């Protein structure tokens, strides 16, 4: 717990401690901390457990993907097609009809016999790396609060996002890049907000609809000067800054901004480089596919490789997986590129030795109902749905938990969103009950007052 909300002790410590905030200065601040003995600098507070992983890539299927057509086969749906037994009379957002069987064929893959449908042939090849949890449940059948819960552990709108909590806990490994990045080809709430955590922990939103790095990060490059001219200008500036500080006296803000200017200067090149997927060989780009989501996955790997702590890839724009109608057609159109890019990411991370210390999390704000909506659609289902994890010490080649015979409700080994959060934090070496921040009179956690580490999922 770091009492940044206690504001009597003023600027010096705040400034020194937050040198390259936003772009996650925790590590640098930590290095500087010894000169500040006694003060409580903003430094990484963890890890306090032995970490298995260092990075997270969160792949978010905005809208709520259908587990019943991808990971959770239910033969009973065929038997009772069109019927509506009492057990499926659960309230969801909209009125639903009878049971709707999946049109897609399932097979078991890998050493653990993980069920995967024909929609995801490439992910099926990665089955031995997947830890598929079929019994995830949430609390609310509505998109916005559901997404709030998924990302922040609370259904209200202003709590810090998980990426902010993680960077608050661990800082970053690359001061020239943001510690926490949200990639999306469109707007909407991308859960980059640090809520009551200091703004240095806020995520940087990158719009991947344009592949030009200059357009992805605001003010990234100067249009009127070449690098040499800008360096000369910066030298002039720093000369003035240094002589100003010499006349005033040592000051944390003055020092900090001199350093921050240098970081910004370097970031122009680092970021321009890392965000430019054209630097990637063509065969690699082909693996990921030429889709905004594929670009997101590829960028995620490039960022992780450079030490970025937490990357969210939002499948967007809008909420494409919200298949209230024409589900089969939609899934046939949408799954191939998702399958291709996700599998490419997992294989690529593995091949580069990055999968061991990167947790890949795949999921949506909820799943979909086994009962139909509008004929061939499915409604929101928070009662039981599927997420999968890969890498970062999660057990591969396994499926965990079960839903009821129709795939509506988690019945065996139910795992809440808070449990997922607790377990991912655990892999990063963070105890979810100790990762707290004092705000408005109480110690807040990502997992609020809930959450258990699901030991069965981790090696």
């Amino acid at each position, binding site marked *: 717990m770091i009492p940044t909300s206690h504001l009597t002790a003023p600027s010096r410590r705040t400034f020194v401690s937050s040198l390259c905030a936003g772009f996650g200065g925790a590590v640098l601040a930590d290095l500087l901390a010894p000169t500040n003995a006694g003060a409580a600098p903003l430094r990484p507070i963890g890890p306090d457990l032995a970490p298995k992983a260092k990075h997270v890539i969160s792949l978010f299927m905005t809208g709520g993907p259908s587990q019943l057509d991808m990971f959770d086969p239910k033969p009973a749906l065929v038997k009772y097609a069109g019927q509506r037994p009492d057990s499926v009379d659960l309230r969801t957002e909209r009125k639903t009809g009878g049971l709707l069987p999946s049109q897609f064929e399932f097979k078991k893959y890998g050493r653990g016999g993980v069920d995967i449908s024909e929609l995801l042939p490439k992910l099926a090849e990665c089955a031995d790396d997947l830890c598929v949890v079929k019994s995830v449940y949430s609390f609310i059948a509505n998109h916005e609060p559901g997404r709030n819960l998924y990302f922040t552990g609370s259904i209200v709108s202003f709590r810090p996002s998980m990426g902010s909590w993680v960077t608050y806990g661990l800082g970053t490994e690359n001061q020239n890049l943001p510690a926490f990045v949200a990639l999306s080809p469109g707007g909407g709430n991308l859960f980059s907000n640090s809520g009551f955590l200091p703004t240095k922990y806020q995520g940087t939103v990158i719009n991947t609809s344009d592949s030009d790095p200059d357009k992805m990060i605001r003010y990234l490059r100067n249009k009127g000067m070449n690098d040499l001219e800008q360096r000369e200008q910066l030298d002039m500036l720093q000369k003035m800054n240094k002589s100003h500080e010499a006349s005033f006296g040592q000051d944390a803000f003055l020092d900090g901004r001199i350093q921050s200017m240098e970081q910004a200067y370097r970031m122009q090149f680092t970021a321009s480089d890392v965000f430019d997927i054209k630097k990637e060989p063509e065969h690699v780009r082909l693996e990921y596919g030429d889709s905004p989501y594929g670009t997101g996955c590829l960028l995620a790997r490039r960022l992780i490789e450079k030490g970025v702590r937490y990357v969210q890839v939002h499948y967007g724009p809008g909420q494409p997986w919200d298949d209230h109608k024409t589900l089969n057609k939609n899934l046939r159109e949408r799954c191939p590129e998702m399958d291709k890019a996700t599998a490419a990411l997992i294989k690529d991370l593995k091949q580069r030795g990055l999968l061991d210390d990167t947790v890949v999390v795949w999921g949506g704000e909820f799943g979909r109902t086994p009962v139909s909506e509008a004929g061939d659609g499915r409604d929101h289902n928070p009662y039981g749905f599927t997420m999968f994890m890969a890498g970062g010490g999660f057990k591969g080649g396994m499926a965990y938990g079960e839903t009821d015979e129709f795939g509506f409700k988690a019945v065996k080994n139910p795992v809440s969103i808070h449990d997922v959060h607790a377990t991912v934090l655990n892999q990063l070496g963070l105890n979810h009950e100790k990762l707290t921040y004092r705000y408005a009179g*109480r110690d807040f956690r990502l997992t609020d007052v809930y959450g258990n580490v699901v030991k069965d999922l981790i090696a």
Partner: protein
Amino acid sequence: MLKSALALTFTAACLSAQSPGTDLFENKIRPVLVQSCYPCHSSKLKAPMGGLALDTKAGLLTGGNSGASFTSGNPDQSLLVRALRYNDVPKMPPSGKLPDQVIKDFEQWVSAGAPDPRTEQPTPGASAGGPRVIDFAQGRKWWAFQPVKATPAPAAKDKLFAQKWQRNKIDAFILSKLEAKKLKPSAEADPRTLVSRVYVDLVGYKPTFQEVQAYVNDSSPKRYKQLLERLLASPQYGERWARYWLDVARYAEDGLAGAQYNYAWRYRDWVIDAFNKDVPYNRFLQLQLAADQLPGATRHDLAALGYLGLGPVEHKELKLSKDVVEGLYLDEWDERLDSVSRGMLGLTVACARCHDHKFDPISKTDYYALAGVFASTQSAVRPLSAEDPNVEKQFIWARQRFTDLNGAISNLSENKDIDQKSAAEKIRLCKEELAILKPKLEAMEKEHPELADLVHNTLVPKKNGGGEGKRFVLNEKEAKAPYVNAVYDAGLWLDASHPDYTLVDLKPGEPRDLALYFRGTGGTGTGKTVPRTFLTVLSKTPGKPFSHGSGRLDLAEAIIGDAAPLTARVIVNRVWGESFGAYLVGTPSDFGDRGDKPTNPALLDDLAARFIANGWSIKWLQREILLSSTYRQASKPRPDALEKDEANTLLWRMNPRRLDIEAFRDTMLRSAGKLDPDFEGPSMDLDAPENNRRTLYARISRAKLNDLLRIYDFPTPMQHSPARVDTLTPLQQLFVMNSPFIEQLAAKLAESVESETGAAKVRDLYQRVLSRNPTPGELDSALTYIDRAPVSRFTQTLLATNEEMFWP
């Protein structure tokens, strides 16, 4: 409820329990309690959850905050069994439902009279479980709740120095603390620094070269005082100080989920005017809570209700169950309550939503007694013209009802999957009501055309306000239409008479008392309601119900009356903090047990007492602060003092600060001669190339907070902000290095000195940007630089200097 009778029935049954029951307990019950319950419900814990300790017989018997654990012999009536069954709240254990067999064991055990052979006593000194009872008498002794009184100034040890240094009473309190640490205050800042400090403090930007020179060359002994008076009297003073309050009020122009507050700017302007007119702070608060009910308030003052009427709105999908929708309303009421209690009282009352406050003397009952005020207060667009209050109330209600009924009809008729018969019946009922409502509404609109805000009607998104923060751009006439986003009194209930659609049921003029909700969760508030009252610990007449409408006026009167000492301490601390860059109480919105203690309690009390005595005048307080020698100290570091008090808690110097984004952007615009002095009025997109107005007038959106504000530590308007936290990030520097905004200013500066040459050019630029002349060294190096590079590159460098952003 079942609570009172329980202990008795249990005791009687317990006596009859014999050894078979004991076996049942030992074999089936105790192991489950140990494994699944003790982690949170044990007397060995500092604070067992819910006040419930299950590790001793006594604890099990007493139960917790929610009442007794069970009714002996009756599993269906037993909280413990119901919790395990997971079909209502609480659901226990929270990690997941226990196997059905275990639940059956518990049912059997309770049916058998719940035999419990345990003899262990609670660990000495630990909580014995049972509901924690707040000791309000003890609570009233908390320092922040004590009456404030002017204190005699402490005498200095070094009388001679004190006589020379002290200008007013503040200095005596500061000097006394410094002397105790053997520290001396710093010398007075040089006139250049001082004039710059005061400009930023009072009007929010740095002075020009001419303004600095005018002050430096003024030989009058009264020049400092005259400077303060001139700036305090200028309209720009309100523009600066309004922004501090807008952080407290989490001001924004949309509600997030589809709600667009078209007239939000009128609240912002009302705050500017209030600071400029030095409206007494107690009145300032009253107006923001109850301008529509306060004697002597003008119609224009209705804008003040924006404090309540401009809050964030959660998206409510009305197709969902009543319980879910109610949960979202509870969140909203909680947000309003939090903004008022932390913002005005410096208390974290919202902590008591789920359970009694763990540290402060605020009960869960206190919470719901206050939350009822917000359940009885609704956002509404209200006309600035005077109206018959009854007609207005009816009109606001009728128009909302009209929208709600139409929403229900379109939603139910579009939903083909639901039972068509019951939907048709509900639609028929809605249409029947509409048939009566519509002509009434039209008649009212015709008779009182000024009631109907046409913009509002055309721009409100259809269908339950769905969609993600839609943005609308109004034309000038629409934006300036004579309306305000305010509130009015109407209790809110939810009508779940149709299973597939939850209809909002507002009752104008009828307040709603709330029951206590379990863990603050929707659907659980089924018990007895509590009357709307003020916080027990602060009230002089605890439990006395509010009697005016929603209770907003009573609440306002209590905040500035019964709670006046606390309220005054909180605002004095806020003003002090903004003036010095550090607070006397380091947690400006938490004066409770978890907050910081004041660094100089006597000073805080004395100032608060005199603040009240001086008519709650903010300008009086600022004169007092700015005239002190403490404020006028230099801010340079002194190694001797740094060693003793590195954080400058005792104020041996002024805290050197950096400009916030508003002052930074405004100062740069002014340096380039581009600042648009347009005063007040509708907001503008901050990124619009033609926007050269003060940053205060930027449109503030919750759905999409402007990037520039975000990267420069602007607080999120989703919630009350106690104070800004400064960060230094490379993204901020990229803005200075590469943004078109800076490039344009740099170009404009270069252009304005185009006709000059050599040293004159450089001197002019230094004067325009840094309000001083260059040193000979600086002149040389600048001349060398502009010999090789375009002048605009040099002007950008000047704007980018630390000196430009520094506020020593």
